């Protein structure tokens, strides 16, 4: 459908294309739902949800629109005003989508917390967000919220989802004190509430992300961000009206919101969502039975799949699968090759951060794939590798290592760190947002990721970027996951220590460890090769898949 396309050559053009001739309200939910309902695509499936057990349940754009209105009208009934915060603590369930889009429709700020966080981080984030209303499940409430409820004075209303997927169906039993069933609450709502016409700079999304030290950072985005979500979903992932799309990211992570809900719905795609965590059998079933055309996942998921998939076992044909993308950590050439072999299409890398809100550097669906490179900056983004030069910064010379920076001014650029204006100011050097990621930009603008700033270390006087060493270790046929860190050493100051996870068929023997060491040395030379290899069952990672290098020295549980 021509009217659904948002591709033009400027952010202003995209903004106008999204609002369309009807001049829709400038609200994320207007772009994600209203646009399609008014455009005559209300019957199209917006969400196909596979519960942990049982067949998938489908919701059309119109179904979602009604439930989202009921949610938005409920907020008004509760006296929750635009700009106040709604929190969601849940896994991949339809009610999460309804709460996110409903809060945005009403002009509230929405924050989604990782359901696998424990009670302490949940309480800390709820307190910092000053959430007035929380959507969660009875179990998560009992275990993670109830103990701290007394310390959350802002939290006026808690809605519990006891039967995910049933939206406004009434609850079976009584809810714990101080809570209410979301189904009954939704049933009271009005199914036809318009989108609040907010200023494009009105706050809409709050994402918590772990900083290098101390408190989690609260990253704030505005409603205008949807322009970038829609554009990148179309331009990078290749999504359009009716595309069957699966994003495996947890909604507690920015990917699960920007590309699990907002971007794909804005393009009119059909979003597939699996309630269950990663499981190799379900993985193949989902791709095959749902006829998934575009998959957005992580290198971690590919590694798990590789670890749990015995070589030679039968794989379904996936004739409909067009593209596979990853995010969260660099895609090693070995993982990329393995993914291509088993899924039949190249695996394409993307780079972005919670702060950028959308994909910035990528190998788009129709772009050339170059092994070892994330890809190139997506126009109209301007990206540079900058290095410090006295008081100022200058662009890195070709192939020189620098900090990946993005010129300010794109719609989903974060607008603040919650309660920390100083940190926000320090995140910019003049017109440039400083990502804290170290990279090289090669001829033609190809970006090669090296390390998260702070992960790099010196060993025997040589700068070591762990990711570079890890990529080589992953090329060893017996190694499926690897992490590298420095370890104090009397002679060298710091030696390179590798922690590896072996493939299912490989046996953990002294001989194999020696073989890995020799292999790394032959490829990296003595200055960069690890001196010690520890075999582990898994590596410590954040929920988004980044290696927690400060935990590497601890043995596996």
């Amino acid at each position, binding site marked *: 459908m021509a009217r659904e396309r948002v591709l033009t050559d400027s952010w202003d053009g995209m903004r106008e294309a999204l609002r369309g001739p009807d001049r829709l309200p400038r609200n994320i939910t207007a772009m994600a739902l209203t646009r399609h309902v008014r455009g005559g695509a209300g019957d199209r499936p917006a969400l196909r949800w596979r519960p*942990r057990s049982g067949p998938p349940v489908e919701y059309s754009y119109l179904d979602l629109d009604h439930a989202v209105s009921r949610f938005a009208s409920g907020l008004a009934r509760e006296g929750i005003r635009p700009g106040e915060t709604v929190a969601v603590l849940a896994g991949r369930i339809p009610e999460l989508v309804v709460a996110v889009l409903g809060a945005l429709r009403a002009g509230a700020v929405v924050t989604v917390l990782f359901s*696998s966080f*424990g009670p302490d981080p949940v309480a800390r984030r709820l307190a910092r967000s000053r959430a007035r209303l929380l959507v969660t499940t009875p179990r998560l409430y009992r275990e993670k919220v109830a103990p701290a409820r007394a310390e959350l004075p802002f939290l006026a209303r808690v809605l519990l989802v006891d039967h995910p997927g049933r939206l406004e169906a009434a609850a079976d039993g009584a809810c714990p004190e101080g809570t209410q069933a979301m189904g009954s609450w939704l049933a009271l709502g009005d199914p036809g509430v318009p989108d609040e016409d907010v200023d494009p700079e009105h706050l809409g999304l709050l994402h918590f992300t772990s900083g290098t030290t101390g408190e989690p950072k609260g990253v704030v985005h505005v409603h205008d961000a949807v322009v970038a979500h829609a554009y990148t979903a179309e331009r990078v992932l290749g999504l359009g009206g009716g595309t069957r799309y699966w994003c495996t990211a947890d909604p507690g992570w920015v990917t699960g919101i920007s590309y699990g809900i907002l971007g794909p719905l804005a393009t009119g795609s059909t979003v597939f969502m699996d309630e269950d965590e*990663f*499981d190799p059998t379900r993985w193949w079933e989902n791709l095959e039975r749902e006829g998934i055309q575009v998959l957005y996942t992580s290198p971690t998921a590919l590694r798990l799949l590789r*670890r749990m998939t*015995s070589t030679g076992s039968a794989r379904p044909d996936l004739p409909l699968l067009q593209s596979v993308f990853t995010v969260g950590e660099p895609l090693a050439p070995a993982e990329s090759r393995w993914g291509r072999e088993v899924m039949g299409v190249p695996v394409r890398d993307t780079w972005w951060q919670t702060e950028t809100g959308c994909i910035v550097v990528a190998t788009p669906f129709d772009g050339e794939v170059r092994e070892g490179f994330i890809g190139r900056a997506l126009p109209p983004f301007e990206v540079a590798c900058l290095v410090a030069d006295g008081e100022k910064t200058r662009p890195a010379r070709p192939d020189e290592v620098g900090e990946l920076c993005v010129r300010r001014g794109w719609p989903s650029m974060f607008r603040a760190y919650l309660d920390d204006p100083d940190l926000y100011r320090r995140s910019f050097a003049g017109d440039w947002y400083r990502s804290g990621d170290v990279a090289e930009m090669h001829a033609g603008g190809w970006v090669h990721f090296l390390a998260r700033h702070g992960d790099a270390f010196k060993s025997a006087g040589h700068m070591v970027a762990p990711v570079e060493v890890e990529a080589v270790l992953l090329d060893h046929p017996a190694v499926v996951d690897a992490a590298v860190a420095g370890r104090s050493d009397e002679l060298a100051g710091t030696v390179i220590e590798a922690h590896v996870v072996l493939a299912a068929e490989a046996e953990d023997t002294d001989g194999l460890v020696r073989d890995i060491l020799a292999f790394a040395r032959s490829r990296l030379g003595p200055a960069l090769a690890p001196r010690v290899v520890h075999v582990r069952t898994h590596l410590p990672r954040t929920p988004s898949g980044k290696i927690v290098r400060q935990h590497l020295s601890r043995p596996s*549980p």
Partner: protein
Amino acid sequence: MSPDDLSASVQKTLRRVVPGAPAELEADVPFRDQFDMDSLDYLNFVLALEKEHGVTIPEVRYPRCASLAGAAGVLREVLATANTS
């Protein structure tokens, strides 16, 4: 091993792989509806079952290992096959 012994053994493995997993579990309810278990825990759990019993659990039976009764059932079947072959 009797069904009860098998179930107890599975619980023991689970608690070793997932510290803090509850001692009282509903046999037919998925672990993930009863406590926090992420993909890595799950993988480690299945691998630990394999290691402790000296068996290989076929990939297609992984999903059934997601509950106490399911995992014990899979283990019983796999052990029976191993004993007869």
